[in-house]
């Protein structure tokens, strides 16, 4: 069976992009909340 490296890299690349995007979303959300006064409503 051929090695199909393009499929392997596509799978790992897609997973990396998804996880990285979620991590960046969390980091951005944490930063915006940390810089806000808790008494001011969201």
């Amino acid at each position, binding site marked *: 069976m051929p090695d199909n490296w393009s499929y392997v890299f596509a799978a790992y690349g*897609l997973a990396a992009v998804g996880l990285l995007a979620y991590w960046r979303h969390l980091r951005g959300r*944490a930063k915006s909340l940390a810089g806000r006064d808790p008494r001011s*409503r969201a």
Partner: protein
Amino acid sequence: MAVRALGWLAALALAAGVATAFGYAPREAVQGNVQRIMYLHVPAVLTAYLAFGLVFLGSVGYLLTRRPGWDRLALAAAEPGVIFTGITIASGSIWGKPTWGTWWTWDARLTSTAVLFLVYVGYLLLRGMIDEPDRRARVAAVVGILGTANIPIVHFSVKWWRALHQPATILGPEPSPIAAPIAVTLLVNWLAFTLLLLYLVAKRTEIARLEDLHAG
């Protein structure tokens, strides 16, 4: 500080996971190198099961105690659970094309996994639709508990119905038939994904606590 340390630990474990998947695990005799997708696919689904188990725990904890911390745990686990299920479906589909000759088939395992994904996407959408915190947490807890019932259906679907998907090679009733280097690589990646899940849950829980604080 502990969350940051957990994040670094997860990053190191993920690097070790990729190194074992591409540098230690042998080329599989029948499938060739495309089998290396399994070091992503299998740990992803096991981590998704764990995440939804945490949703179940948080949901039961909330209904029993009405403490918002349990609800925050359920929310914090549901989001990465959906992502890991998405990775499972995408990586399985990418593996399926060269191996089965198709991106997708309505096989019992694939269909039940897609249902699992949609249930928890629905869980997150539902949370976004209810403004009142107590009612949101209560309704979400019920859905979180009911959604977990799908996990044994996904896992045992390959036994209960005729499926194209192979039966369980790990977490099955028989001793695993896979070779030691493949098993070790799976284990390293499973551990890495578990650490990553714990990190993401800890970070998301902290964010949810701050959100509650700001919402008053």
